[in-house]
């Protein structure tokens, strides 16, 4: 029996791990959970799944209300429905962790156009409204009673600390190499090879480009 690291999750769903939308969604979800900054929104994947869920929902309700549906078909329908519920859970989990990061880094995202491109339109609207509400709240509760010079919410202090929370790109993450990867440069100037299937604990910034290219995933 061969369970070496290289087969990690390859046996999930059989072989076509890359093509399988659920496999991709699980990866996107777990990557998002462990990455310190917001990753690019998987728009095509989510749209595709939502569309399929909608279509399947129609088929299922049509079959369920049809009296000629056999018992065998009913069994298959319950399986399809369970699978749909599982997919919905995955989508919700994915959206939730994104929302969490969007709210946490709202000010930073709104400041940086590069970050904004990682959000869907709905997410961007949410970030704007969230930040607006937060600012209104701060003003209504405290700031309006203080002198004007203390009103800023985006100041950087002389010691380099900022009022804007930014993702810590030095945050350590467990990285799994899905394919043979090009050598990565470590912060101390050394180079290492991420063998296919190996798992390393590395700083996020060391592997962020590999992650964006899908060569590694976070575990």
């Amino acid at each position, binding site marked *: *029996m061969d*369970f*070496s*690291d290289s087969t990690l*999750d390859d*046996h*999930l*769903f059989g072989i076509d791990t890359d093509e*399988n*939308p*659920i*496999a991709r969604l*699980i990866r996107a979800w*777990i990557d998002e*959970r462990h990455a310190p900054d917001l990753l690019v929104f998987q728009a095509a994947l989510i749209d595709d*799944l939502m569309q*399929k*869920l909608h279509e*399947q929902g129609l088929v299922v309700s049509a079959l369920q209300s049809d009296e000629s549906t056999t018992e*065998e078909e009913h*069994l*298959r329908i319950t*399986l*399809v429905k*369970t*699978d*749909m519920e*599982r*997919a919905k*859970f995955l989508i919700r*989990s994915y959206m*939730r*962790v994104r929302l*969490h990061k969007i*709210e946490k880094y709202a000010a930073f995202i709104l400041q940086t156009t590069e970050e904004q491109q990682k959000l869907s339109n709905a997410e961007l609207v949410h970030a704007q409204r969230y930040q607006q509400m937060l600012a209104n709240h701060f003003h209504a509760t405290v700031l309006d009673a203080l002198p004007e010079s203390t009103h800023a919410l985006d100041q*950087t202090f002389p*010691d*380099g600390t900022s009022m804007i929370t*930014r993702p*810590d*790109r*030095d*945050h*350590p993450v*467990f990285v799994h190499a899905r394919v043979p990867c090009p050598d990565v*440069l*470590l*912060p*101390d*100037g*050394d180079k*290492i090879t991420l063998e296919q299937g190996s*798992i*390393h*604990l*590395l*700083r996020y*910034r*060391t592997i962020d480009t590999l992650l964006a290219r899908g060569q590694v995933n976070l*575990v």
Partner: protein
Amino acid sequence: MALPVSLHASTTPQELEFIAGYDMIEIMPSVRTDRIRVLSGTYGPLDALRTTKVPVWMALHLKARKKCRIVSPAWLSVDYLQDRLAEETSDKAFSLLPFRYAEIAKLLLDSAAEDIESADKIRLILKDIHEARQAKSREGLHQINDVNLRVRNICALELNDIRPSFVKSMDILIKLSPQAQQSHEEEDTFRDWSMGDDSYPVAADSTMETEW
């Protein structure tokens, strides 16, 4: 909040179990159906007494309705696990087990124990294996440094277990590392260091890859 605090630091064992539900397993159906097309793939057709590969969640779903018998995976046997346990206790390295062995074993032993030969004995061995491996993974904390740590043959649940302490330790080492000190001194001229440029001040010492 969008994400409960309990989910911030790591994934939960329940979430890992959910993912392991997509692992493939063989079943011996007792009903006949057409192919089953779901979002995660197409499985079947189910035919009585012919083994078929389906995801674990589907197998357990059918099992709960008494529509199949689960074929215990080859690694979930007393002989195989006993050998691994012997390795765990004699060898410093982790023995080779499926990445999600703990979750799958739990799912199967919880809901389909009657299909697994000597399930009670397997439970005991799994517990011993888990304890032996847990001791080792904690030992690994001694080898942590601020740039890179390779972990071999570790499993999803163990990774989850060590994550909070390992990540925190490495984080502290990073903050104490010479690069961090240097970048702090350069703050005035290079304040956005942490955001844009990917070049690093090279440190004098170079602790390299640690393997365990």
